[in-house]
């Protein structure tokens, strides 16, 4: 044979082989449609269990849009590649998962494939849900199939070619989908293991709190080192935590369960819905999460403990300071913020003493900017923290001066850069965020909450 023919032959072989391999990787069979199962066919206790698990999984948060029905999808999840709309997971036969068997549901959770064999975008965090046990998938299925079916067709995703071709997700999965990233650890307590199972699996904390690579996958070498969601920064919740007062189990438990902690503030932004859901599940599960995360945080070093003591001292007797460069910010703080943030009124209704604020120690000022611009809205009819927004009364320049002042006064971290740009972006994105997020269904609990 001549050389070119051999080359052509090899190339053809490779191409055909590659295509076959690609096909083998990308193609998934459809699972037959079933008759939508009758809600009464599911055991009530299983459904209850599924409800708790769905709350831990925060399913309603992504799969519900403001003004829309529960689980009917339609929420635009912003990604670096474009917006992806959450799907309808009500048991509607045409537009939801009414025709899905339990096996189909389990496959979606385990490997991110829908009933018809199409790959699901990993905005649906099956890289975590792959850890969910069969038993728990069964309960989740029972819960979802007993919800009210809502006819709500999926909205088209806003992705550019070729990302809008689902089979490319197969490539992503090949690279990034690990099976069983959670493994039980016999040296740890049952509670710790329970927490690990929930955190690595259903609760998918890392999906927000872990940085992602250019292809949108979690950087597993940096789990829990901080991530981004909806133009909010999800803080580092491991040894790189920047909170002025280190977290411990009791603080974590209180924060996740009640929605606030005296040394850390009130959970708002995207975290508000998470703690709202966690307030309704079994306490033991929330405590288990707190136990596991305590070990993820690791014991705080001497340096951090010393700094925490300094913070507490600063709160007791605040030093007065105005260096010429931040007079503007200082006077804004004194006039607009101190009246609420320097009272003795305890959380969750008093403004947090900003020396305790993690937002001011974060790598960028987004969270602080978001809160200053939009404030904190009350939950309907419930005792709730309320903070007025200053987006309309303050200019970008004023908010930036304030942020720089707060950073300098209340944190040991180096100054932020590009603050004014961040403020401009925050204005725009907060409007979107508040317009489409369903919002928490209950408010942070207070010590004398009636309910």
């Amino acid at each position, binding site marked *: 044979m001549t050389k070119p023919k051999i080359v052509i032959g090899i190339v053809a072989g490779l191409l055909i082989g590659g295509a076959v391999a690609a096909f083998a990787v990308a193609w998934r069979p459809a699972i037959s449609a079933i008759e939508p199962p009758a809600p009464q066919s599911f055991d009530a206790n299983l459904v209850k269990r599924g409800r708790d698990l769905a709350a831990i999984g925060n399913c*309603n948060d992504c799969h519900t849009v403001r003004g829309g029905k*529960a689980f009917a999808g339609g929420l635009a999840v912003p990604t670096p590649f474009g917006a992806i709309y959450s799907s309808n997971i009500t048991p509607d036969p045409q537009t939801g998962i009414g025709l899905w068997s339990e096996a189909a549901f389990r496959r979606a959770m385990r490997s991110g494939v829908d009933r018809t064999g199409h790959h699901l975008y990993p905005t649906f965090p099956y890289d975590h849900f792959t850890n969910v046990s069969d038993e728990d998938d069964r309960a989740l299925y029972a819960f979802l199939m007993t919800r*009210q079916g809502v006819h709500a067709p999926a909205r088209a995703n806003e992705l550019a070619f070729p990302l809008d071709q689902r089979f490319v997700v197969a490539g992503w999965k090949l690279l990034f989908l690990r099976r069983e990233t959670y493994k039980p650890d016999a040296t740890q307590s049952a509670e710790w293991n329970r927490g690990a199972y929930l955190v690595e699996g259903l609760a998918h904390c890392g999906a927000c709190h872990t940085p992602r690579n250019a292809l949108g996958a979690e950087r597993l070498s940096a789990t829990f080192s901080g991530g981004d969601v909806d133009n909010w920064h999800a803080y580092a919740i491991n040894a790189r935590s920047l909170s002025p007062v280190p977290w411990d189990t009791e603080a974590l438990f209180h924060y996740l369960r009640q929605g606030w902690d005296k040394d850390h503030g009130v959970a708002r932004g995207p975290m508000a819905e998470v703690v709202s859901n966690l307030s309704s599940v079994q306490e033991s599960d929330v405590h288990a999460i707190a136990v596991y995360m305590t070990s993820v945080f690791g014991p705080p070093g001497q340096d951090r403990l010393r700094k925490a003591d300094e913070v507490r001292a600063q709160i007791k007797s605040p030093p007065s300071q105005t260096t010429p460069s931040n007079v503007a910010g200082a006077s804004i703080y004194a006039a607009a913020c101190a009246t609420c943030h320097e009272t003795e009124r305890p959380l969750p209704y008093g403004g947090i003493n900003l020396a305790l604020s993690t937002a001011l120690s974060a790598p960028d000022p987004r969270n602080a900017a978001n809160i200053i611009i939009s404030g904190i809205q*009350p939950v*309907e*009819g419930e*005792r709730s923290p309320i903070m007025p927004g200053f987006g309309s009364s303050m200019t970008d320049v004023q908010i930036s001066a304030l942020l720089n002042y707060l950073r300098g006064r209340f944190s040991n971290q180096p100054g932020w850069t590009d603050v004014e740009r961040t403020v401009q972006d925050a204005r725009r994105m907060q409007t979107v965020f508040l317009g489409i997020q369903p919002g928490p269904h209950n408010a942070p609990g207070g010590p004398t909450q*009636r309910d």
Partner: protein
Amino acid sequence: MNGPVILDRRRVLAGSGALIVSFSLPDAFAQERETQAPAPKPPGSLAKAPYLDSWIRIDADGTITVFTGKAEIGQGMKTAVQQIAAEELDVSFASLKLVTADTSRTANEGYTSGSNSMKESGTAIQITAAQVRELLIAEAARRLNVGAENLKVENGAVVAPDGQRLGYGDLVANDMLHVQAQAKSKLKDPATYKVMGQAVPRVDIPAKVTGGAAYIQDMRLPGMVHARVVRPPSYGAELIECDISAVEKLPGVVKVIRNGNFLAVVAAREFQAIKAMGTLSAAAKWRERPGLPKQDDLLRVLTSLPSQDSTIFEHNDPSAAGQKTIEATYTRPYQSHGSIGPSCAIARLVDGAMTVWTHTQGVYPDRAGIAEMLRMPPEGVRLIHVEGSGCYGHNGADDAAADAALIARELPGVPVRVQWMREQEHGWEPFGPAMVTRLKASLDAGGMIAAWNFEVWSNTHSMRPGGAGSMLAAQHMAQPIAVPPPKPIPLPEGGGDRNAIPIYKFPNAHVVHHFIPAMPVRVSAMRALGAYHNVFSIESFMDELAGLAGADPVEFRLKHLDDPRGRDVIEKAAQGFGWQKGQKAPADRGFGFAFARYKNLAAYCAIASEVEVNRETGRPRLVRAVAAVDSGQVVNPDGLINQIEGAILQSMSWTLYEAVTFDDTRITSIDWQTYPILRFDAVPEKIDVHVINRPGLAFLGSGETGQGPAAASIANAIANATGKRLRDLPLTRKRIKDAIDA
């Protein structure tokens, strides 16, 4: 009012043509009078101020001024009263001047409360105006030597057949109007009304929407200073230490007052006063003592406190035998008036005379209290009502007036303005009392109620008039005046027992009022008083009984109700709603119905509602409500509709959200974070109000008639939507969720 009161529904007779009204007409005590002495009592507030010129004054230039002892509290009273006077005097609405509650100028009409303004003041002014008109005609007849029947009135003048006009100003001579009201009045025929019964735009709204001075908070007197009170942190707290020297040196501070536990600072400018208040508060050290009950244990607390028990209604018919019996207990927490504008008052002491501008509901009783507090003769104190924000009963207004007077005494000649802070209004106002009701009833074989038992536990619903002792300044000052012992408001008005007696006809009925004197939490009158909870209980229970009988809720009520006006509003509301027997609400929704006649003698109101309940979260949503109301002769239909719409929304907020919270020492619901009320995100899609006008019949108070039925209607709709009955107010999202999950 010691024995049981047997209600006899008095039908008010109305003729057509010229109405001849005698004193026995539109009055709750009418029945009493019939059986008593011959001299009839003038109706409404004419009983307290029978001279015509207490109500209407006509100047020589023809200017007509109407005086009412009632206060505008946002209910449109000023407009309605002006309509009445304009109608009977046959003058244009706009030509009248109106003066409201002022101890130097108007009759003593007690409190603007109890939905009595139309009945008391409206009636008095209607009769006065009619009699003034007749006097003017008679005078013109005398002067023109013409028969009165040949004269007519037009635009403020009496007109003779030959066209001669004698203006009212010309006719009024000397003390012509200083005569007592006669027993008979020639009232106009409702069919000829030009102003009454019309939706005349409210006189106060234009200023309110263009930044005109409309409220006490807008008053600015020359040389006025600003005061802030530093209230104790809790009931009974004692000031043990307070270094005021630093505060006295703050910029703008004019005076710091420490009088026992009463602590206040006065400054030249308002923000200076606020800052000084903060410093003063930080400098004050208090000794507090825990004395509050457990807020989650009010059922046990209220039913075990000592009480004065009385059977307020009893009817027996042993032939009616009950077969199926059910019981239920309903509870209501303390609730707050929640006035949007915290209380405010201005006081000035000049040459030994104290003037107080205040939004109190009762200028005369408040004056008596302030005079007592200052040890001044009442004649030396003048109270002038200036509108505040809606008070919905006894809020901090009276206290603010006392505060201002106490401070003004220390700064003679200077007008002192006291403005309460939000936290002070929330923390110190007298709340609507917590209540418990226990109901038990049985159905006979035919599904009709055979026996009905109702018990209500409650504090007093009014700590006024209470003299000085009911005002914080007097309680806190160095020689304090003790809080007076609480007294129940007698029936038929009632307090905790308001609307406790069912309007329905039951063969056996037994109603007991447990009046609890001890008040661990400061309480007083809040809109509708006991009627809110009593109607909530009765109407919820009627639904529970209807369910037991397998009957439609509307039909069930009609089967037990004689009162034709009550039946009319029930049918009207049901029809307006589209209520169908055997109806089924859409998924996750429920329909509810309720009805009451406020105090069993004021306005009738029935409300049908549709509520959606989110099964995932438990959150209830009022989708729509349809109401029907009968207020007798309607004065201003739009004002009436406004009141009913408002009642439904206000009651919805009370019913779904509101409870005062406290720990063992302090009130903890001290702002809108901790005492949430209705916001625009929960407003229903639609509220329809159908007004049944009764021309010529007595005015029936309507400011409080909607709250009770709205609460029960919503509760019944929630029960219909979820299949679960909730009996503890407020019906919060969490309680509904827990009930659904149970």
